[in-house]
Structures are given as C-alpha cells and as structure tokens.
C-alpha cells in the first residue's frame, strides 16, 4: 500500500507551467530553513576544515601557521585518539544493539496488551524526557559507594560492593547502564509506533497459517519494521557518537582514560587545552566516520522498497 502511494506521488505528471510554479513554491518554502542551516553550518564546518590544516593553539604566543596534514598524522599516533575511537565504537555498537533488542522486546510486549498501551508508553518515556545531565547526577547518587542505593542492595544480598563509576573495570559498563536506562524508552516508543502501523490482517493471516510467534517475528514483523529500525538505529548511532553529558558528570573520562569517548577527548583538546587545529582534525575525522556509517544504514534500509510489496503478499 505504501509502495503504491509512493509510486503515484512520483509519477504524477504536470504541465510545464505548473511544474515551474511548483518548483518556485518548493524553493520558497525550503529557502528560509536552508538559509539558516547553511549559515549556521557551512561557516563553522569550513572554518573547522581550514583549522584542521593549521597549528593553532589559542593560548600559544606563537602565531597560527599552516601545517598541512601534520595534525592528521599526529592523530594516528595519538593513543588517546585511538582510545576515544575504541570507547565510542564499543559504546555505540553495544548500546545500539542492546537498546534495539530490549526496545523491540518491550515494544512487542506493549503491542501484546490490549489496554493502557498509550499510558504505559508515556510513563515509560520519562527517562528519555529527563535532561542527560540530570540523569548523570541521578546515577552518580545511585552509584555512590557508601551511600548509594545499588550498593545498599548488594550489601543486603551479601554480594561484594562495587565502586562502579570509579572502578577501572566497571566504569564503562556503568555508563552503558545509564545510557541504556535513558534511551531505551525512546526506542520503545518509536518501535511501538511502528508496530502499530503494521496492518493487523498480516499477523492474523500468518497466525491462521500456523506460524509460531518466532516465525511471525522473523519473517513478517522485523522485515516490515525495517524502516523504523533503520531510523531508530541511525538516531541512536548518531547520538552515541556524540556521547558526552553523562561522561562529563559521572566519570570525567576516567578512571584514567577508560571512559574517554571521542567527543570527550575533543572537548578536552579543544576546551581545556585550546588546541584548535588538532581538535578540528579530530572532528573532521569523526564526522566522516559518522557520515559513512549513516549512508550505509540508509542504503540498507532504503533498498527493500521493492521487496516490501513482495513481503505483503502471501509467503
């Protein structure tokens, strides 16, 4: 059904005069938004790009000078940059998959209910509504070694106490827990909305055919949700690459550099040391990585436009 609508939208033919009037309207409508975006983004991006080829330390008495790709080469040897990449990649991979999995499970659970779905979805959404720094402080209190709730429960259960965000071993997992707590509800809401838009007859038909729950999930639900999944994955992936607030509050990149994400390292280089050129080079690289990843995902999810029609037919 979706496919047919889209096809029609693209193929409607109009006489030339209307076409150019349409284009004019379109450009007028798009104009203000594009203008602001370009003004706000092109300048800093070009500036950052140019900076990445210079040695510029705002605090140095020496003047800014052109150094070519020196910053980029230094980055490759910088163990903190590599560390940032690893931490961020690990974070993104872990969080996107886990949040997607649990989010989907909960969305399916919501879908299974016949009442209170809306209310539950909204109530569950609260963690995602809170400000990230607020979430950070909340969990800082929960993780507190002597007075925090988590260790209280551990103590009651006679389990060994943990130092959570101060522990070299558990600092990163602690952050994962916090991020998971904060954003899974968001996933649940979007996935649930997606589930709701799948026509019921599909499920009923499959069930009448004798498919088990798992088969329905695998051959019907997930493929039909591919668009939704693509969107939530992109949203979360992009956000995880920028992960900063909770690290700032909970661990300050520590212990050592165990939780120093790419964004946090960029912040340190740019805002603590004011190494502008170096930071700019880092930002350019991380931007390229994200663009490539998103393109990949978009390609993956936009492809099955044709297959969609096939999916809705009888298997």
């Amino acid at each position, binding site marked *: 059904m*979706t496919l047919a*609508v889209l096809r*029609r939208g693209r193929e409607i033919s109009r006489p030339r005069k209307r076409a150019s*009037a*349409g284009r004019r*309207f*379109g450009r007028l*409508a*798009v104009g*203000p*938004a594009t203008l*602001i*975006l370009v003004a*706000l*983004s092109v300048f*800093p*991006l070009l500036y950052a790009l140019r900076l990445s080829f210079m040695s510029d330390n705002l605090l140095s008495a020496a003047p800014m000078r052109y150094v070519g790709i020196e910053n980029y080469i230094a980055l490759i040897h910088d163990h903190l940059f590599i560390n940032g990449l690893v931490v961020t990649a690990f974070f993104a991979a872990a969080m996107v998959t886990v949040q997607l999995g649990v989010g989907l499970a*909960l969305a399916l*659970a919501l879908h299974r*209910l016949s009442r209170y*779905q*809306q209310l539950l*979805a909204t*109530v*569950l*959404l*609260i963690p995602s*509504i*809170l*400000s990230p720094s*607020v979430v950070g*402080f*909340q969990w800082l*209190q*929960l993780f507190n070694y*002597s*007075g925090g*709730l988590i260790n209280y429960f551990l103590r009651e259960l006679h389990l060994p106490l943990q130092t959570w965000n101060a522990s070299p071993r558990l600092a990163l997992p602690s952050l994962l827990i916090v991020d998971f707590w904060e954003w899974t509800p968001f996933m649940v809401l*979007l996935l649930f*909305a*997606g589930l*709701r*838009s799948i026509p019921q007859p599909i499920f009923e038909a499959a069930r009448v055919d004798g498919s088990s729950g798992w088969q329905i999930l695998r051959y019907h639900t997930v493929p039909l949700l591919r*668009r*939704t999944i693509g969107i939530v994955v992109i949203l979360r992936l992009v956000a995880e690459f*920028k992960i*900063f*607030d909770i690290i*700032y509050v909970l661990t300050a990149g520590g212990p050592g550099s165990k939780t120093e994400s790419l*964004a946090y390292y*960029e*912040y340190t280089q740019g*805002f603590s040391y004011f190494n502008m050129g170096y*930071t700019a080079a880092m*930002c350019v690289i*991380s*931007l390229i990585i994200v*663009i490539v990843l*998103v393109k990949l995902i978009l390609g993956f*999810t936009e492809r099955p436009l044709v297959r969609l029609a096939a999916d809705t037919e009888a298997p």
Partner: protein
Amino acid sequence: MIRRRGSLVAAVAGLAAALVFFLFPVYWMLVTSVQPPKDWLASPPVFFPHMLDWSNYSQALTQWKGFKGLADSAVVSLSATAIGMVLGVLAAYAIARYRTGGRNLSFFILSMLFMPPVAIAIPMFLFWSHLGMIDTFQALIVQYLLFTIPFVTWVMKGFFEDLPPDLEESAMTNGASRLRAFWEIALPNVVPGLVATALFAFIFNWNEFTFAVLLTRSRVSTLPFILPTMMESHYVLWGDIAAMAAVGALPVVIIAFALQRYLVRGLSFGIIRSN
C-alpha cells in the same frame, strides 16, 4: 490458547520489570528532593520519608536561581521549537511534494544532526562573541535552530510523503493556490505528527547542554547550565540537585502526558512508514 495466554503473561511480566527498572530511579530522585541532607546518602536508605522537607526546592529555586532557569529555558525552548516548526514543516512539505533539492538537500539537512556539538562549538563561540551576542537569548535560540530544523524537516518529510497527494491535487485543479492546499489540506491531516514532532523538538531543546553551557552566562541561564555548578562545596548537594532536576523535568513531563494521545498515534503514521 495456551500459547497466546503465555505470551500475554510474558508481556505483562516484562513490562512490569521494565516499569520498576525505568521508574525506580525517578522515584528515588523525588524522594531525595524532599529529604534533609543527613538522609541523602544515609545507609540504610530512607525509602519512604515520613516528613517532606521542601527546603531543597526553595533553595534550588532561589539560591540556585531555579525560577530563572525555568523561565529562561521556557523562552529559549518555546521560541526555538516554534520557529523550527514553521521553517521545518515548510521545508519538509517542499521536499516531500516537490522534491526540492533532491536527495542532496535532504541528506545535507539530515547531516546537521550528525555533528557533535564539540565540533562546531569553538567556531560558533567565536562567531557569536564576535557579534557580541554571548549570553543573549537570540544567540541561543538561533543556535538551537541548527538542530531543531533538521529534526523537524526530516520527521515531517516522512509524514508528508505518506499522505496521498490526491486531495491537494484536486483542490489545486479546482483553483486553490499551493499555499492553500498546504495550509488547509495537508497540514490538518498531519496534526498528530505535528504535535509529536513539536513535543520531541521541545524536549531536545529543553535538555540541550553543550551550547547552553557555552553561550550563556548570567543574563541567560537555562536549567542544564545551572546543574553542573551545583557540584561543589563541602559535599555534593544531592537534595538540591534532585529538586532542581525535578523542577526541570516537571514541565516537560506534564506536557508529554497532556499530549500522550498524539505521541503514539503521531509517530505511527509517518516517520515509521517511509523515509
């Protein structure tokens, strides 16, 4: 059938566990916000305080300028969301209906969301300070548009793409202008989507941290800016922080609940189905 009931039990159990996991820290934050300092990290913890101590709230609101934080956040978020919605919806319509800019423009707008704020923070800071507009409302609002417009455009594009253009077409053949077709036909049909989008945009603006910290000082101080300054002194002021957090979250939670009807319905129409 047993299989169906079994799945219902599993669903309910799973949701119950989820509710506890996701809501208990919120409950704890509320409890902390009404406890006196001695109970903040008390061991064993006080789960059900007998007396509600509201001094954390009065301190958060006055000493830590919570009222101003609320007001400033409201001004900035509402303005940025409103402007972003107007511009974004227009742009989304243009792209959806007239394919303006093609895939390039579409991706360009989407890519605004990729940028880590840190990447453009310094150039933007220098830009705004060169204009002498640090610590102004206008600067922060315009800065927030950088993320609000792409988000609104991208999401609303999906909604418009999903709306069959037939009604608008027939209206235009009957003499209506494109603007009227947009205003009187397309828009009313995506109202749930509009509401859901506006709500999420508002939430993101309300909670935005990096630029709030960067571009504000004393004349403008949104709520996210105030929080990190509260981590000092003899000990960490958990109660005050919890109170400030509650104060900051309350307006948004209220709005979300008031508009919950649109949340799910709005999202399930467009963004999910096509892009």
